[in-house]
């Protein structure tokens, strides 16, 4: 059906000219059932309004760049099919809870800072030289952290989290999930370096388990699970005899 149309209402905001963001409507052809919201934005940029700004890269749900609010829900726009919304208009807004830079582009500095603070990489007390061979792991050891390693840093969980929205000092879901990913890794020895951040009052204890982070996660990471498990672990370290042992 070549004459099928869909209405996209996208946030527009130019910090040099606008006092506040506004919605602008675009009517675009809906020519293919496999079209996603990102395709619609790309169509607008290519054929209607080249000034529309937004982030995207892989179009495959891997890079995590194209997260936006689609009809009020945090989504990867490359994974939000127009057919699921049509014939209703689709409202595309920047991710909630982050400062807005321009149009659909948010400022992700706060998230990047939080991500770095949990040291999401393997930490060894003593590096084994390359000649010493590889760090071997069993399948069971990999299964311990595999789910949390699926995080693509898309920040949908932060946009869905009202705790972060109310207090942006909160470490947040993705950073905690990634901290847990490395803490559960048998090759890692960096738990004590991460604890001051994750066990802080603005760390896992700020979470009151809304659970929406896990609902919106496009990769099934379940950050809420990571946070609650970290609460249990840090409590056990505090309560149990020898709980603070290395």
């Amino acid at each position: 059906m070549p004459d099928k149309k869909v209405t996209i209402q996208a946030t527009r905001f130019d910090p040099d000219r606008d006092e506040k963001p506004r919605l602008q409507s675009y009517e675009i052809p809906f020519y293919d059932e496999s079209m996603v919201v990102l395709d619609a934005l790309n169509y607008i940029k290519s054929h209607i309004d080249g000034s529309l700004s937004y982030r995207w890269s892989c179009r495959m749900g891997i890079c995590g760049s194209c997260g936006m609010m689609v009809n009020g829900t945090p989504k990867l726009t490359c994974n939000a099919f127009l057919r699921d919304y049509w014939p209703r208009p689709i409202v595309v807004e920047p991710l909630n809870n982050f400062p807005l830079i321009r149009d659909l582009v948010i400022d992700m500095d706060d998230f990047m800072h939080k991500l770095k603070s949990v040291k999401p990489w393997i930490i060894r007390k003593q590096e084994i030289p390359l000649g010493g061979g590889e760090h071997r792991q069993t399948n069971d050891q990999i299964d311990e952290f595999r789910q949390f390693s699926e995080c693509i840093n898309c920040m949908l969980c932060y946009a869905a989290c009202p705790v972060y929205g109310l207090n942006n000092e909160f470490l947040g879901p993705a950073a905690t999930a990634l901290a847990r990913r490395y803490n559960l890794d048998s090759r890692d020895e960096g738990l004590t370096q991460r604890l001051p951040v994750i066990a802080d009052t603005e760390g896992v204890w700020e979470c009151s388990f809304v659970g929406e982070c896990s609902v919106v996660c496009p990769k099934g990471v379940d950050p809420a699970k990571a946070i609650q498990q970290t609460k249990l672990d840090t409590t056990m370290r505090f309560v149990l005899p020898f709980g603070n042992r290395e």
Partner: protein
Amino acid sequence: MPTSWWTRSRHYLLYVVREFTALPLALWLLWLLVEIKRVGDGPGRYSPHGSTAFVVFSVIVLLFALYHSFTFLTLAGTIIHVKFMDRPVPPSLIVLSQFALWAVASGVIAFILIWFGR
């Protein structure tokens, strides 16, 4: 964040209701402490509160407590990660065991209260 953020989705609304249940629960428990203090002062000073309004309030608080407990015990399946014979115990079994323990604990407390209250 707009103050109406919790009306955006059913999930947020249920969360806020769950958090709110702590307030009437705390009030009811404060009342319980007052009653225990009055019992300690002797039978002459003690007269149990039995008005219809209080019974209705207590039933509502009971429902809130059940809602809160259900959420908490269901969460156990997500948090607790144990293995038996080198295999992970299914979350559903963990949740079931929590509810079973809850039922047993409630039964024991009810028995003690009824037995010593006679």
